[in-house]
């Protein structure tokens, strides 16, 4: 004898099953895992204490410095690429497209390795490490930001450029004073997302070969991991990344809400 369930009853059953699965999974995790080992590996208080203050005063600070350097360079180059991409002159467009496709299609890891070896070879004089980091993060970031900025420029209504031109502004003046400022307002949320991605990508700069004082969070954490045979430094490093990225994520949501309201 099959009794037909109403739609509400069926939804309740499905919900109950979903919660049931969750509870079982948690139970297995709690009972099967060796919590003593896990505590020693991840939450070793002595090891944790030893990481401070350097993990903040050196590693966190360096992560922020590298990210900001890469972002500023990437944003500038990205704007140039976006304008080239929209240029009336075909070779500029081709160059920009080639650049964007290349750096978006190739793993950042390879770019960093190539730069780590290539820059010392290309420039006989010693190049400041910060410059290399800025180049590496910026070159990759620029490819993504160029596409974001291009979309932003194209999202500014055509009437804006027409109004500016009919007031006698040259094409360049109209772009600088009228279109680009509005485009940046539009792309502020996606650009902030770009900043979050760049913060995480800054963990790749160890490939450029860094000295102790130049370690950023990921490299610092791995070094301490090798030294103490404990994952605690990695956990702390991870939390410190969140200290940077969570507020940025919050900012993105607020910016998006603001844009939605402005429409």
């Amino acid at each position, binding site marked *: 004898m099959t009794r037909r369930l109403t739609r509400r009853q069926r939804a309740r059953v499905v919900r109950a099953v979903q919660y049931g699965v969750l509870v079982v999974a948690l139970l297995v995790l709690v009972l099967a895992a060796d919590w003593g080992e896990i505590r020693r590996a991840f939450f070793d208080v002595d090891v944790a204490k030893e990481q401070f203050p350097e993990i903040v005063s050196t590693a966190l600070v360096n992560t922020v410095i590298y990210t900001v350097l890469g972002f500023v360079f990437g944003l500038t180059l990205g704007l140039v690429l976006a304008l080239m991409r929209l240029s009336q002159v075909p070779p500029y467009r081709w160059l920009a497209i080639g650049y964007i496709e290349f750096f978006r299609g190739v793993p950042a890891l390879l770019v960093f390795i190539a730069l780590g070896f290539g820059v010392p070879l290309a420039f006989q004089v010693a190049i400041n490490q910060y410059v290399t980091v800025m180049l590496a993060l910026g070159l990759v970031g620029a490819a993504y930001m160029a596409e974001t900025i291009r979309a932003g420029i194209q999202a500014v*209504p055509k*009437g*804006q450029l*027409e*109004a*500016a*031109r*009919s*007031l*006698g*502004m*040259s094409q360049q*003046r109209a772009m600088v*004073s*009228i279109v680009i*400022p*509005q485009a940046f*307002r539009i792309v502020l949320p996606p650009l902030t997302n770009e900043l979050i991605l760049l913060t995480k990508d800054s963990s790749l700069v160890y490939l450029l070969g860094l000295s102790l004082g130049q370690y950023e969070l990921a490299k610092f954490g791995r070094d301490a991991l090798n030294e103490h045979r404990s994952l605690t430094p990695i956990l702390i490093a991870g939390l410190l990344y969140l200290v940077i990225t969570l507020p940025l994520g919050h900012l993105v949501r607020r910016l998006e809400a603001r844009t939605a309201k*402005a429409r």
Partner: protein
Amino acid sequence: MSEERSEEPVVEKSPADEGRADAEKADLAKTDPEKGRAAGDEAIRIEGLHKSFGDLEVLRGIDLSVRRGEVVCVIGPSGSGKSTLLRCVNLLEEPTSGTVTVAGNEVTDPDVDIDEVRRGIGMVFQSFNLFPHLTVLENLTIAQRRVLGRDRDSAERTARRNLERVGLTDKESAYPSKLSGGQQQRVAIARALSMEPQLMLFDEPTSALDPELVGDVLAVMRALAGEGMTMLVVTHEMSFAREVADRVVFMDGGAVVEEGTAARVVGDPQHARTREFLARVLDPAAARLPG
């Protein structure tokens, strides 16, 4: 003179207008009777203007001239090429062939500095196109400063004078999004006037407005006409055309079908297409009746 024009919505030309036209003729006579009309007195001269978008021929040979101080209204059904005509005057669209001459300068000449030509031509759009990231005052000063090279003080003085003309002195620090459509359009007019143009183009300036806001914008335009501004106006406001226009041009299918005084074109149209169009605009219900 402006007062009479704005207060009396008459079909026939008022004596004042006759007087003005006579004065202009007298002016012409004083200079070269033949050439005076072609060069000195002509604000816009359009000859054999064609414009195609790909295969679509939108303007099929337009000849039209606007004298200095004249108000010409362009009317016609949607898609007849009115906006395109207007946009060819300040080269927002590049004509396919033909010439456009503004104040004696042929703007279709490839050697002409188009930015300089545009400085002398104010344009008002249907959708206002105010700069949303700038305040009202900044909207009015940015081109003065960046294009004419005026310093902030003199640009702001000019801007405030023009805000006063459109009755919006109290809105100078507001952003455009905080203004009603009618206020935005008046700011757009003030923005164009701040460049001190010799000629104003209006592309359906009131079409995007709620009916109760249309009057304020038309009042500003009426006053401007009264001050002797040369105006080429695309509009569906027949009462405005009747009352203010020196001449009305009816376009259809990319060509001028008929032109003449408002009294003639709107009051006593010669062509069937004009009559049909006017019947539809003046009384939308009538168009739906058979016959």
